[in-house]
Every structure is written in C-alpha cells, then in structure tokens.
C-alpha cells in the first residue's frame, strides 16, 4: 500500500512538473507581447518598453526565466499580475471559493439524484419507464452545458422573471447576513441546475449498470435461496457492492471540481475561475494565466491521488501489491 502510494505521489509530482513545462513553453512561445499591450498603441515609448521588459525579466534567456519561475514557485510566490499588479495567488484565492461552492453543490446533487434514478431504473430493468429514462439520459448527456444554461436563462429569467440571470449577489440590494445568503442561493439555482442536469447521466448510467451487474451475481441468488427478505438483500449486499463505481466517478468529478464548471460560470457571469481565465486570456496576463493553470493542474493531480488512495482503502478487493 505505501509503495503504491509513493508511486502515485511521484506520478503526481511529475505531472505537475510537466504541467509547469507545458505552461511555460506555451505561454512564452505564443505570439503577442504583453509589454506592448501594457504600454499601449498610441505612444510606444522605447525607454518605457525597455524598462518594463527588464522589470518583468522578459529580456533574460528563457531557461533563466524558467529557473526563476520554478524557484519563486517553491517559495510560494506566483508573481504579480501584469495587468493589475496584484499578487497572482491572492487573485486566484478570491476566485476559488465561488467556483468551489457552485461545483460542489452541483456534484453532490448530481451524485444523489443520478444514483437514486439509476437504482430506481435498475430495479425495473426492461420496462418502458427504464427505456424512457435511458433515452432521456442520452439527451442530457449530449446537451452542451452552456446551451442548457442559456435555455434556463431564457425560460426562468427572461420569460418568467422568477430568477436572476447572472452574477452571485444583487449589487443594488446591498443585503446583509441571512438575506445575503438567501440572495446568493437564489443566484445559484440556475447555474447549479445547468451543471447538475448535465452531470446526472454519468451517475445514472453507472449506478444502473453496476446494480444490474451485482444483482446477477451468484451470491445474490444464494441469498435469495436462503429466504432473506428482498429489501434486506438490496440494502445490505447489492447496494454496498454496487456503490463503489459511483464513488470513483464522484472522486474524479471532485478532481475536476475547479475546471468542470468553467463554461457554465461564464454563461452566468459567476465570479469564479471560469470567467477569470477568459479575462486573463484577453489581457494576455502571462503570470496570471500560468498561475491559474498551475493551480488547476495541482488541484486535479492531488485530488486524483486522494481518490485513488481512498478507493483502495474502501474496496479491499483491489490489491496494488500484486501489480
């Protein structure tokens, strides 16, 4: 177990390093010069350009820049944004909470609803209802989340005027305390629905197929033969065995927590990482982009390892020593 864990962590570190390299190469090989953007088009003062280039170290050899970048990262310094001059790490932390709030709510809701529907259909396998639910899951799986978001805005915000279209809080109301929490919740309904609806099909299909699979196993037949009540067989034996794949998917979903909801965030102007990336891209804010990509890579890598370890702890049948 500990050997396996060590290997996974090594892979994780390697992955983060590769992400760092890709990050650096892409951003430095890209056409466009941030200094030009900063100085402006109207009066490109050569002295100012030279000074700024020196200040951000863009005149040094690439390898030196890379070394400096990694060195600073190890000290926990991600640099300052070229555009706003604020530390990148502070800017990212500000954006993480709203994203996590949105994505976590959606992931939990989707896991619960999807699994429940999957179990419901698995126990009615072959019926018309099961077939219909299967088709509906295909439909939602094929729906782009941004389009679903727009449709929700069209129906609930623009036509029915019951929910706000965008943002996280009502700027005009200036709510405090409980009223503010309610306000945020109201703003969350539409983006969370868009995310949840597109996530449900995964959980639905996985729960359904794994329950069907476990129900067909020999030991279930044996249990039935002993006369154990069907409810008990289900609760104690089928469910417990069949829920493992769902946990894995939930874990992977957790890993993509910060990245998965980006487009929906943009549709609803949610002040999270998604819209932040777009701003960083249009401003060609190199340090900020590198910081965002790094944070995302690290969070995905760490979560993947956590999921792997948790999973092997949960399911004793998986033995990594034999590999």
């Amino acid at each position, binding site marked *: 177990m500990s050997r396996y864990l060590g290997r996974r962590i090594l892979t994780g570190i390697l992955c983060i390093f590769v992400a760092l390299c890709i990050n650096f190469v892409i951003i430095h090989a890209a056409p466009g010069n941030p200094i030009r953007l900063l100085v402006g088009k109207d009066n490109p003062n050569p002295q100012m350009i030279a000074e700024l280039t020196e200040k951000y170290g863009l005149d040094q050899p690439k390898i030196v820049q890379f070394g400096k970048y990694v060195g600073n990262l190890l000290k926990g310094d991600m640099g300052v944004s070229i555009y706003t001059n604020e530390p990148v790490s502070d800017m990212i932390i500000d954006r993480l909470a709203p994203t996590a709030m949105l994505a976590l709510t959606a992931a939990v809701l989707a896991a619960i609803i999807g699994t429940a529907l999957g179990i419901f259909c698995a126990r009615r396998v072959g019926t018309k209802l099961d077939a219909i639910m299967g088709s509906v899951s295909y439909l939602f799986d094929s729906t782009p989340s941004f389009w679903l978001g727009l449709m929700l805005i069209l129906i609930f915000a*623009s036509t029915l005027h019951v929910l706000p279209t965008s943002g996280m809080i009502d700027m005009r109301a200036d709510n405090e305390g409980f009223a503010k929490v309610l306000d945020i919740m109201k703003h969350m309904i539409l983006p969370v629905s868009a995310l949840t609806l597109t996530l449900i099909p995964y959980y639905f299909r996985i729960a359904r197929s794994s329950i069907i699979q476990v129900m067909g196993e020999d030991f279930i037949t044996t249990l039935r033969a002993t006369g154990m009540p069907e409810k008990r067989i289900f609760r104690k034996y089928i469910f417990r065995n069949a829920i493992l794949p769902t946990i894995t998917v939930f874990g992977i979903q957790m890993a993509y927590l910060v990245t998965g909801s980006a487009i929906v965030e943009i549709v609803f102007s949610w002040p999270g990482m998604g819209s932040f990336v777009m701003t960083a891209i249009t401003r060609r804010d190199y340090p900020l982009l590198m910081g965002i990509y790094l944070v995302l890579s690290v969070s995905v890598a760490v979560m993947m390892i956590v999921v792997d370890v948790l999973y092997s702890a949960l399911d004793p049948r998986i033995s990594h020593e034999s590999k």
Partner: protein
Amino acid sequence: MRLNKTLKIIKENTQLKVGCMMLVILFLAALLAPVIAPHNPNILSDDMVVAPNMKYWLGTDGLGRDILSMILYGARTSLVVGFTAAMIAGIIGTLLGGFAGYFGGRIDGVIGEMINIFMMMPTFFLILIVVALFGSGLFNVMVVIGLTTWVGNAKLMRAQAMSLRQRTFIKSAESIGESRMAILFKHIIPNGIFPIIANTTMGVAGAILTESSLAFLGLGDPNVISWGQIIQNGKSYLVDGWWMCVFAGLAIIFTVITFYLIGDGLNRVLSPKLRNLGKEVRG
C-alpha cells in the same frame, strides 16, 4: 457477403440502427448544404432578427443571415472537426498503447507514465489556453483537441495488446521469426482495434462538443460558420431572438447523440464484455 452481414448487425442493434440513420441525415445535410440551403449563409440581408416564418424557416440572426442555412453549413465544420480530431487521437492512442502493451518493459514504463500524467491534466483548459494564444484557426482547434484526447484510446489499446501477446497465434508468429514491428502492425493492432473504433466514435462527439464550447467562448475560427459561433452571436439576442440559440443548440445535441448512439452500439456489438465500461469521463 460482408456487406449483408454488416447490414444485419446494424439492423439488429437499435442504437446502431437509429445512430446510422441520423448519421446519414447529417452527412446529407453537410454534403448538400449548397444545394438545399434556402439562402446564402454569408449574405447579410436587410431582414434582421426575423422570427421563423415561411421565408426564413428558422429565422434570421442579428446581421440578417438565415439561421437554417447557417446550421446546414455548420454541419460541415462540426463533422470535419469531429472526425479529424478523433482520428488524430485514435492514431496516437493506438500506436502508443500498442507499443506499450506489446513491447512492455521500459517502453511500457515510459508510455504508461505518460498516460498517467495526461490523465491528470485539465485538458479543456489546456485546449482553451493554446487556442487562445496561438490563434483559433480550424486547423489549430482540430490538432489541439486530437493531441490532448488520445489517453482513453491508449489505455484501451495497451490492455488489448497485453492480452493479445499471450495468445497462441502471436506466439507462433514470433516463433517463425516474424519481426516484432510486423507482428504489432499485422496482428496486434488489427485484432485489438475494435474497442478503439468504438471509443473513437465517442471521441467524435467529444470533439464536436469541445469545438462548439470554444466557438461559444469566442475562440472558434472566425472564418467558418459553426454552431457554437451561432449561439455565441445569438446570446445577445436571447430575449428578442430566442431562435438563434435554440436551433443551433438542437443541431449540436442531434449530432452528439448520433455519435454516442453509434459508439455505444458498436461497443455492444463488438465486445459484450465492454458493455458496462461505457464512455470515458469528460474532463
């Protein structure tokens, strides 16, 4: 006859049957777009933001372009991007997976680690950043999607090659002195390719979704008509011109379902064991 056999398989599997019929419709729409499109999709007419009527079946956009014609031409973009990107991912995945699984040892160690690393990457963000910084030409979009989505194929092919290399016919080919390269390309890959074909079909759907997401974010090729772009432009007219977003989105859903159905159907037909694996989780 082989064709008859194929047709029989398609007829017997509902998902494949429906999927193939939808695919034919899509191909016809894309191929015949210049013939069947009622208007030129690039002409800016004076009829701006017109609701669906007899002249413009699906209405017009903010610049007076006919939505139906744009959707028909958009099918070309989606199919080209989907197929090219999925093919790139399929070829890279098959080769890397085949090498790793068949040769084993150090090669497998290196490729296996590459697979693990790519599994952990937030690919959509990578695609987003590359396209945003290097330009959003259609070629760039296709290549970047292809280069970042091969992992699933490589894993499948690796597993296939690992199990195939234990089989007698491979052992006998080795014993009569066939070169390992020849065995890989003549026996291992042809015999293990089926799950990759099914997965690549799903990959077409994934690539089409990714392309439309990029176009929706304004990072699509500005010179071609694509469904995501129609939605991006229509977003500002959501209240006064719902038809722009609605129909282009339905076109995306139709196309993606087509490839999901075919991919799923192929999975069931080709390898009943894989039935529960389904499709890879989107990143």
